[in-house]
Structures are given as structure tokens and as C-alpha cells.
């Protein structure tokens, strides 16, 4: 009898499964975008970077019930710069039309998990911290995505477990990141962010070992008081930008070893408005572990402090306002670019003015940047950027932009070192 009951239950389950599957299938939502992005490098000595930066993002999501939500997205990137170096490469479609496919996000959200006020999110996810407009100093949980120079403030979703507890106006978020994930650099454009000092070296990269003790964690508490939103955060993990940890000149080419510094980041941010003007700010006090790099040069061995354990403070302050007539102005001061550490923090000022026309069918934006590396001698230590852009968005789901990414300055400055990456672009993005 018991066996019979078991068989009946199994049969019932089998009968129900297709129905259940169909129900889930019917609830599944799909979406994403196709972005075609043609770049024209306009410098005489243009870098051999990819000149067609296309993306196709395919997203699926389903919410089987009010407490559960599943999301995944796949990111296809395809380029039109052939990578053929020898005749045999012409036989290989991947060399002629390079492509990349990656799982961009894949997570499960559980709402009201165990308690009504506790949410859990598990999987590859974007965890966005900070109140600044893209130039976030406290947003350290996801690794940086420098693959597209024009969008250098992007981040890559990371594998993580995130728990958020809500109590009245307070929100406590705790994150555990089991794996370390390093920065993504532009194809053929590493030197844009890490400099070209190591180009003549054979480098090797040492990632933190995949051990539980190397997993990363963070927490943040946020609230609101008298119209001010604020948060305090702490991150314990690794800097996703590598640093030189040993150098050997005794062979040709020399050997360089890079690894990722262990850091702790104490962060705070705020946002508010005063008389209709928006204000925000965030600061990150980074406490790195000391790194001493062994160097072997001309048969002489010595050690050099590659990274001091002295804390350093990076911040971003910003403000925005919409003037009558629809002129939107956004200004930010960033002290310490994403790649900068220790006592080499420079100042960057970004200003963006936007105006929409014809019922938001057309948007004109003018962005500019000024970099100051040494206030005592600005004329020899500056960089600049101009980023005008015209966007047509007159048809639903379509966005067409033309613009330029013009940068320059003194060679020692970051923006000055990008001068060979000056470009004009035509971008078409269709969402579905």
C-alpha cells in the first residue's frame, strides 16, 4: 500500500511538472538591448584598440511567487577589428570577428526571508554603493569595468551573498563575496589605466588563492535624518587593480610580477537637497596592507615599498540643479581616480550640462573634465577632456547618439596619457 501511494505521488508529480513548468515559462520575462557602437579614432598615433564596441545583452527573469525572484543576463560583445597576425588566422572566424560571451548577472532574490524585513540576494550581482553620480569611491564590491574607455566608471557584477535587513528608517546590508574578481581592462589598452612602464616586461599576475580566508566581506548601515540620507560602510577585501610586487631585470625581457593588495575601506556618504539644489558626497578611507617588492637589477637585489600601509582618503563631492528651461547641470569633484592610491591622489572636476528638446526627443549634453595633479604647478600638471554628445530618442526603445571623447593634457597626467585614444563615435541602442 505504501509503495502504491509512493507511485501515485510520483505520477501526480510527473503530471503536474509540465503544468508547473509551463506556468513558470509563461511568467518568464525577457528583455535586454543591442548596442552597436562604432568608434573612429582621431589621433595621429591612435592606439590599436577595438574600434567597434558592440554589445548584446539578453535578460530573463521570473518571479514564481511574491517572495522569490530569479534574474539572469548574458552579455555578448563583438568587435570588428580583425586579430589576424598570420595567414592561418584568416582561416579562423574568431580571429577575424572576435567575440566574447559572459554570464553577466545570475541571481536569486528572496524577499522576507526568515523575517519580513530581511531580503537575501544570492548569485552574480551588481551591488551599487555610494551616492555620487558614477564616480563612486565607496563602490568597491564589484570590480571595475574599464573595457570601454568612454564608460570608465562601469562595474562588473560579482558573485556574492547579500543580506539586507530593514528596520524603520534603517537599513543594514551585509555582503559576502566568496571570490576575488580583478579589473577588466580595455582590449589592447592596458597602458591607459596601468601606465606603460611594464610594457617591456614579461608579466605574471598572481590572484589571491581561492580560499575561504581570502573571501571578502562588507557591511553598510544607511538611514535618513532631517532630510539627509547617509550611510557608513566597511569593506574588507582586495583592490581589483594590480600592483607591482616584484621585478627582475636580469633577463631579457625582464620579469614583472603583479598582485592585488589587501585593503580595508571605511566609507561614508550623504545626499540631500538645499533650496532645490541637490548635494552629495562620499569618502573612502582606504587602509592597505604594506607591500614590499623585491627588485633584482644588474645583479643587485634590493627591496622597495610598493605600497605603504599608510591610510589614504579619496572622496567625491557633487551637486546638481535643473534650471528653468530644462537645463540640467551636474558638477563633481573627485579626489583620487579609481586607479590612484596612496599619496598620488589627483583632483578631477567633471561638469555636465544637458538640455532636452522637442519633448525629450533630442538631448544635447556637454561634458567636460579638468585634472589637476599638482596645485602648486598647475600649468605643468593638468589634463582635460571634452565630451559633447547628441542623442536622439524620439522612438520608443531606440537611442542614437553621436559624440566625441576628446582628452589631452600634460603627458604625466591621466587624461594626457589618453590623448591617443581621442575618438568620435556613433552609437545605436535598441532595448527590447
Amino acid at each position: 500500500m505504501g509503495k502504491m501511494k509512493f507511485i501515485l505521488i510520483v505520477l501526480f508529480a510527473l503530471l503536474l511538472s509540465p503544468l508547473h513548468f509551463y506556468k513558470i515559462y509563461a511568467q518568464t520575462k525577457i528583455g535586454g538591448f543591442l548596442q552597436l557602437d562604432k568608434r573612429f579614432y582621431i589621433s595621429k598615433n591612435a592606439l590599436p584598440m577595438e574600434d567597434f564596441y558592440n554589445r548584446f545583452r539578453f535578460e530573463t527573469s521570473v518571479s514564481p511567487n511574491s517572495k522569490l525572484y530569479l534574474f539572469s543576463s548574458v552579455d555578448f560583445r563583438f568587435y570588428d577589428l580583425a586579430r589576424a597576425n598570420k595567414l592561418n588566422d584568416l582561416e579562423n572566424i574568431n580571429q577575424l570577428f572576435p567575440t566574447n560571451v559572459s554570464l553577466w548577472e545570475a541571481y536569486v532574490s528572496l524577499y522576507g526571508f526568515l523575517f519580513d524585513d530581511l531580503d537575501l540576494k544570492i548569485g552574480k550581482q551588481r551591488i551599487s554603493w555610494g551616492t555620487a553620480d558614477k564616480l563612486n569611491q565607496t563602490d568597491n564590491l564589484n570590480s571595475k569595468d574599464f573595457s570601454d574607455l568612454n564608460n570608465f566608471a562601469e562595474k562588473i557584477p560579482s558573485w556574492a551573498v547579500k543580506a539586507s535587513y530593514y528596520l524603520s528608517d534603517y537599513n543594514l546590508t551585509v555582503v559576502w563575496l566568496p571570490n576575488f574578481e580583478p579589473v577588466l581592462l580595455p582590449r589592447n589598452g592596458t597602458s591607459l589605466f596601468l601606465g606603460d612602464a611594464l610594457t617591456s616586461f614579461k608579466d605574471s599576475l598572481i590572484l589571491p588563492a581561492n580560499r575561504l580566508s581570502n573571501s571578502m566581506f562588507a557591511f553598510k548601515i544607511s538611514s535618513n535624518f532631517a532630510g539627509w540620507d547617509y550611510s557608513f560602510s566597511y569593506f574588507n577585501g582586495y583592490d581589483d587593480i594590480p600592483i607591482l610586487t616584484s621585478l627582475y631585470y636580469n633577463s631579457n625581457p625582464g620579469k614583472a610580477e603583479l598582485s592585488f593588495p589587501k585593503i580595508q575601506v571605511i566609507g561614508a556618504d550623504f545626499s540631500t537637497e538645499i533650496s532645490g539644489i541637490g548635494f552629495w558626497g562620499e569618502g573612502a578611507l582606504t587602509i592597505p596592507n604594506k607591500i614590499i617588492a623585491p627588485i633584482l637589477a644588474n645583479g643587485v637585489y634590493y627591496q622597495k615599498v610598493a605600497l605603504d600601509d599608510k591610510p589614504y582618503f579619496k572622496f567625491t563631492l557633487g551637486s546638481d540643479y535643473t534650471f528653468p528651461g530644462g537645463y540640467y547641470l551636474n558638477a563633481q569633484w573627485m579626489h583620487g581616480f579609481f586607479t590612484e592610491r596612496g599619496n598620488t591622489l589627483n583632483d578631477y572636476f567633471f561638469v555636465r550640462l544637458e538640455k532636452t528638446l522637442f519633448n525629450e526627443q533630442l538631448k544635447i549634453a556637454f561634458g567636460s573634465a579638468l585634472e589637476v595633479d599638482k596645485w602648486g604647478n598647475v600649468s605643468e600638471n593638468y589634463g582635460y577632456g571634452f565630451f559633447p554628445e547628441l542623442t536622439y530618442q524620439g522612438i520608443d526603445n531606440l537611442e542614437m547618439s553621436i559624440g566625441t571623447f576628446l582628452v589631452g593634457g600634460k603627458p604625466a597626467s591621466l587624461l594626457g596619457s589618453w590623448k591617443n585614444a581621442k575618438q568620435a563615435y556613433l552609437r545605436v541602442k535598441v532595448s527590447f
Partner: protein
Amino acid sequence: MLNEMLQIKTLSTDRHKPSRESRYTGKRMYQILFVIVFLMLTTIANAQTGKEILVKVDSVMNAPKDMTAVEKMTLTDKSGSQKDRDTKIYQKGSEWRLVRFLKPADVRGVSFLRLASNRLYLYLPAFRKVRRISSSVKNENFMGTDFSYEDMSQSSYSNDYTAKLLKKENKQYVLELKPKPNADVSYEKLILYVDQSNYVYRKIEYYNNGKKVKVLTVDNIEKIGKYWFGKKMEMRNLKNDHKTTLTLTGIKFDQGLSNRVFTERNLKRPE
């Protein structure tokens, strides 16, 4: 009426010669006086001021404790081409509002939360980020519609405007609204057409720099449960002959919406 009054006065002066007839007429006089006073008081009571009418408009508008609805927005330009946006709206009291975009794809998931006139938040799913937006945006069109952020979130006209009753016509009160000193509003004048029977506004004309710039009309007014509500609204921008039509469906009132709906937590949550 005036003759009657004069007559009463004449009769009443003859108090030195009381007679059966005069006693009768005196009694009548009191009756008439009572009727006159009653009529005067009734008239005074019925002659509402613009302020009183506007307070009633606000109370009708904010009567539901909470509301949810699906809102279809159709944007039409002067050439007749149209764009559609579908949103789900949640409202509690007169201040809290959450608007979540369901369609089209390029704005799907974008959500707007208003907790106070100076606490506005926008969730941008592409960045997985909630951004606080400054109230200076209030004059701007909300997501390409002809409704400004201010139009979308105006919850109490009597707090921000003084009202003057201009006239009554077609069973409507016509009110002129002017901003109170220090009121944080962007129109210099509004003309409200209010239904006399239920105090629902049927039309609003918005003025700036002495010119009528926008007109809002409200149609399909129905009593849903205990509340009068306009299920269709059209905002026409007279400067560029562009209009936005809002049609509400699935309207539900007083469901006891939790305060949790109006939080950053829920703002980020997919519909």
C-alpha cells in the same frame, strides 16, 4: 419681497392701537421675518468662498487612504505620432507616491518614489542604483510626458495657493488660484473648474508669464467605492501642441497599503 418688508414696517409702527387684526398681522410679520432670516442665513451658508471650495477639492482628492492603479500614458505629438508608457502607481495619503514603469522596454523598471516635496528618488535598473533627485526637477516633464514632476505630485492646492471664486457656470465653480507667498510652485496662476456636485476638478488651466501654457482635462469621472475619481486625464501643452493622456484601470482604494511599499527597498524591487 421688498414691498412685503415695507408693509411689515408700516404695520409694525401701529403699536398703539392693538386690534385682533393687528395681532394677526404681527404674528404674520414674525413668520415672514423668520423666513427672511432663514433665507439669508441659507444664502450665506451656500455662498462658499473660493478657499472653502478649494479645501473641499483637496479633501475629495485626498480622501482615499491609499490607492493603486495601472496607468496607461499615451504621448501624442502635433503630427499625431504616439508613444505609450504603462506604469503602476501606488499612493498613500497625500504625500507618498511610487510610480513604476512597466513599458516600454527602455524605461521598464525605472521607478520614482516621492516621500516629501524635497525627498524624491529615482531607481535606474540599468545601474541597479537609487538616486536622489533634487526638487529643482519639478518643472521638468516627467519621463517625457506633458506632466511635470510637480503636476504629478501636487497633493494639496490649498496649501500652496489662495483661491478666488470667479464664477459659476455649467454646474461648475471656476476658481482662480494664485501662489501663496513662499509657496514652492512653478505656475503663476491656475484656473480650476470644479464640479459643484462632487468637488472633483474637471479642468485646470496653467498660466505662466501671463499666458495659458497647459490645460488638464479630467473625464470618465465615476464613483468607485466611496470616492469620486476621474479615470481619464489629458494634459495638453499649448506651446508645442503635445499632449499626454492618462487612462487608469484596476483602481483600488483603501487596501491598507503598508508603509513598506514606499521605501527604497520596494523601489528597487521588480514588479
